[in-house]
């Protein structure tokens, strides 16, 4: 296996890459904001005309009602309910700020929306300067004048309404650009240069045993082709034989991991509502959605261990192709599903495809790395996954809100299909594991499950964490946000917060956990933060609290999930010495996935029984119960060596 040189030690914000990233972000932000602002200014005249038409219709409706009252003999000064009438109109047009009736002397008889003083001031300014914070429209009613005022800022509404969408698109565009740049630079520059360096070092040492085997047709390739010719002739002269040297394009797995997770995450914000709609004919929609989501996650839980067993024989490339193909079929099928049973089948396809591609990528990393650089290889895959976790729901929410839920699934299918094509380029078919993964024995599992602390970790931390992730974040949050009147794009943005917080906080928290050697403490803190967010969302329902709860969940999982892995190995140290870490990781992962599969179904049951707000509260209390049990039962854990952590999904 080839080795990835150790990274140069730099601070978190040090290094050229961060400066480049910063510059590109700032440049993109400035240009996008400038373009948007200019576009809004250019559109202002058109918008002003549209607003004028709307104002004329509204004032006509208002005047008609007042004239009718007048015809019935109700004197205008004695009108009652003007504010209520205005409130009804304002509910349909939030840009309508006030309405008033003035007599011929300019005295305001009736005012609604804002105080008489403010209206008078606004009308006065309008008379003097012709430009106020309100666009004023008036109409004569005999001796009286009816006036309505619209918010002038409404002219910029198309910009401000889409500001979050613009930011999301910007972030996603940056992330994709970053991924592509990283891929292109690594494949075309970094890897050839690194191999060239090894070949030249070999030459300098007078060995002439390595040829540059990292094919490229650019200047580096042409230069190294001449060097190869020199090495070949020299090696012939000294009676040696030179072998081509090359490095595996491990970076490709990052892009593939990004793509297969993105294909699933694109539809994340709309899954519960879309599934509820499709399954409504068979069972209670909310329960139907939970069941479908649970079956998908259960399929992943079942398929992953099975795929791991055959990955060595099939090879990563073929396995990825099969998985991405299944995911494509599943996602397209989901988009056109007409009822509960066919939806279950399509989601099972997707789940199987997801598990297969995940195992293929994981297997590829294991096969293409050595013990020295395995953590870096895993980190590369995990960073692709995390990026998709952040980008997928947000961009999927925008797509679904503009072109419909089914299209979001089709887009996911399209991404999965794209990954099929890219897999041929990005997975090195020559990389094969040199030995099959060891299959843990039943005796080993029995010995492991007799470890009380490990069982406590699995039952009260690992499984509940994934249960809450799928039950709360994937199932309840979209439902709850939908009930608060949030649109799909907003749902996507809220779900995105989870990945964003986890990504931004993960590095710092991991450093703290490592430094303090406090894995079980971190697991407990993560559980507490989860409970805090969920109980808060249950007690103070609303959009803001929901976003906060999702952020807290991201922070909680960044704190606890990597620590669970380290803690599981530390708590099973004697077992690991005897049987290796395989069974520990297998049990931990299986419990997580079963917890994940239980999440939507238990979430659906809670929502159907108690309503979505109380359901969040009860899930929060469940989280609290788990963390209390964990803290009581885990006891004091001795400080010891820290095993390497890897990401998880």
């Amino acid at each position: 296996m080839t080795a990835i040189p150790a990274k140069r030690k730099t601070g978190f914000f040090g290094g050229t890459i961060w400066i480049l990233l910063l510059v590109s972000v700032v440049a993109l932000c400035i240009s996008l904001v400038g373009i948007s602002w200019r576009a809004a200014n250019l559109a202002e005249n058109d918008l002003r005309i549209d607003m004028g038409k709307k104002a004329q219709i509204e004032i006509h409706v208002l005047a008609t009602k007042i004239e009718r009252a007048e015809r019935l003999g109700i004197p205008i000064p004695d009108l009652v309910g003007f504010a209520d009438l205005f409130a009804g109109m304002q509910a349909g047009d939030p840009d309508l700020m006030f309405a008033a009736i003035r007599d011929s002397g300019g005295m305001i008889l009736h005012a609604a929306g804002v105080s008489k003083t403010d209206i008078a001031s606004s009308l006065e300014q309008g008379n003097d300067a012709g430009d106020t914070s309100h666009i004023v429209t008036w109409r004569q009613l005999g001796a009286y004048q009816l006036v309505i005022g619209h918010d002038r800022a409404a002219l910029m509404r198309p910009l401000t309404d889409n500001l979050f969408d613009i930011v999301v698109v910007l972030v996603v565009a940056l992330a994709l650009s970053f991924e592509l740049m990283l891929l292109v630079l690594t494949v075309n520059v970094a890897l050839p240069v690194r191999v060239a360096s090894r070949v030249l070092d070999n030459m300098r040492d007078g060995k002439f045993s390595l040829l540059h085997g990292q094919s490229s047709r650019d200047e580096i390739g042409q230069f190294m082709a001449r060097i190869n010719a020199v090495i070949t002739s020299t090696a012939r002269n000294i009676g040696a034989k030179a072998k081509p040297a090359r490095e595996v394009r491990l970076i490709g797995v990052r892009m593939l991991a990004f793509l297969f997770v993105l294909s699933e995450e694109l539809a994340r914000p709309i899954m519960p509502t879309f599934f509820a709609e499709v399954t409504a004919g068979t069972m209670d929609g909310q329960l139907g959605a939970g069941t479908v989501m649970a079956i998908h996650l259960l399929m992943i839980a079942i398929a992953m261990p099975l795929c791991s067993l055959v990955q060595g024989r099939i090879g990563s490339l073929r396995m990825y192709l099969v998985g991405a193909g299944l995911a494509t079929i599943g996602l397209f099928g989901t988009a056109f599903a007409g009822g509960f049973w066919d939806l279950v089948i399509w989601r099972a396809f997707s789940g199987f495809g997801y598990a297969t591609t995940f195992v293929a990528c994981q297997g590829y990393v294991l096969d293409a790395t050595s013990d020295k650089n395995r953590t870096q290889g895993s980190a590369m895959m995990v960073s692709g996954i995390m990026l998709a976790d952040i980008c997928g729901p947000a961009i999927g929410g925008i797509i679904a809100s503009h072109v419909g839920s089914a299209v979001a699934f089709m887009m996911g299918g399209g991404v999965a299909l794209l990954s099929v094509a890219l897999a041929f380029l990005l997975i090195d078919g020559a990389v094969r594991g040199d030995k099959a993964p060891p299959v843990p024995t039943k005796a080993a599992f029995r010995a492991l499950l007799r470890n009380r602390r490990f069982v406590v970790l699995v039952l009260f931390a690992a499984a509940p964490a994934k249960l809450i992730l799928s039950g709360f974040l994937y199932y309840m949050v979209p439902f709850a946000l939908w009930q608060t009147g949030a649109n799909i794009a907003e749902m996507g943005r809220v779900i995105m917060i989870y990945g964003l917080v986890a990504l931004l906080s993960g590095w710092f928290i991991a450093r703290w956990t490592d430094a303090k050697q406090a894995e079980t403490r971190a697991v407990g803190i993560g559980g507490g933060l989860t409970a805090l967010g969920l109980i808060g969302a249950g007690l103070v329902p609303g959009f803001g609290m929901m976003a906060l709860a999702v952020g807290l969940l991201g922070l909680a999982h960044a704190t606890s999930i990597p620590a669970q892995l380290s803690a599981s190995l530390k708590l099973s140290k004697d077992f690991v010495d005897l049987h290796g870490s395989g069974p520990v990781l297998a049990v931990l992962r299986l419990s997580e996935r079963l917890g994940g599969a239980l999440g939507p179904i238990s979430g659906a049951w809670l929502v159907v029984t108690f309503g979505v707000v109380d359901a969040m509260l009860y899930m929060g209390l469940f989280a609290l119960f788990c963390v209390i049990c964990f803290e009581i039962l885990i006891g004091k854990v001795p400080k010891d060596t820290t095993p390497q952590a890897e990401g998880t999904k």
Partner: protein
Amino acid sequence: MIRKIVRCVLLVGVLLVMAAPVLRAQEADPFRIALILWRGETEVEKGFHDYFTSQNIPVVFETYNLDRNMDAMPGILETIRRDPPDLVYTWGTGITMAAVGPHDAVDPARHITDIPVVFVMVSAPWQTGIAAPQGQTRPNVTGAAHIAPLSAQINAIRAYRPMDRLGVVFNADEANSVANIADLTALGQEMEFEVLPAPLGDGDSPANPEDIAGKVAELAKQGADFLYIGPDNFIGTYRDILTGAGFDNGLATFSATELEIRDGQAMFGLVSRYELVGRLAATKAVQILRDNVAPGDIPVETLERFSYLIRLSAAKRLELYPPLPLLDYAEIIE
């Protein structure tokens, strides 16, 4: 082909000729319905008649008008027993109670037990015991109630103006009025308003219309925001005295029944249109007579939609103009 068509036409013609005597017999044998009325025919009976006409169901109505005299009731029931009609229609709580009795104290000697009875204008059929409690039925009795739910009435009052105290002058001898006051008082605790009851009459002396003005003045002093006319035959009869006293004391009157606004001077109300109540009762009568459904299997119901009525002349007199949003859906009577 043409022969086949001719044969079919001839066959249909023969069948029609054969069926004609049967159809004529049906025409000649219409249903007989006895109407027992409190004060002559109203819009309710118009709706009742119209429904039969629209359904082309032949029916003969035998009208017994009490003309507000309950003493005539035993004689009418005796007449009905001697020559039983197909169905008896009763108007109002008093007549219905006299005709069928409370569900748990039926006396076959005094009450109708073997003829289907359909009642109308019974404001509180369950509270008065005319209808059996929920889950039970009366074998020969069903009907249509006409009063909007009390909470909807209170919301209707508050849609006009804020209301904290509701003054009610009522006849203490009428079971439906007493039941209504009890329900209003209970609702007052829930919806945060106070009921100011002003009963007329008691067990010993009957209600006297001359006491109405005094009671209204008393309610005005106690701070009533509105006067309320519920389902009360006595107040219905002397409604103009009540609303007149209201004008004198600056109090507007809300009514739960239509006539007090349409024919009287009550300022506003949430009511069932009498004609629609009649049509609802007629649908039940048709189910019994034509479709042979047992009256006990037909639920006692009220309408699902009500009308908001405003008498503008009363509003102008009190200078209590209707709020603008109400003009969108209220029926204005000028």
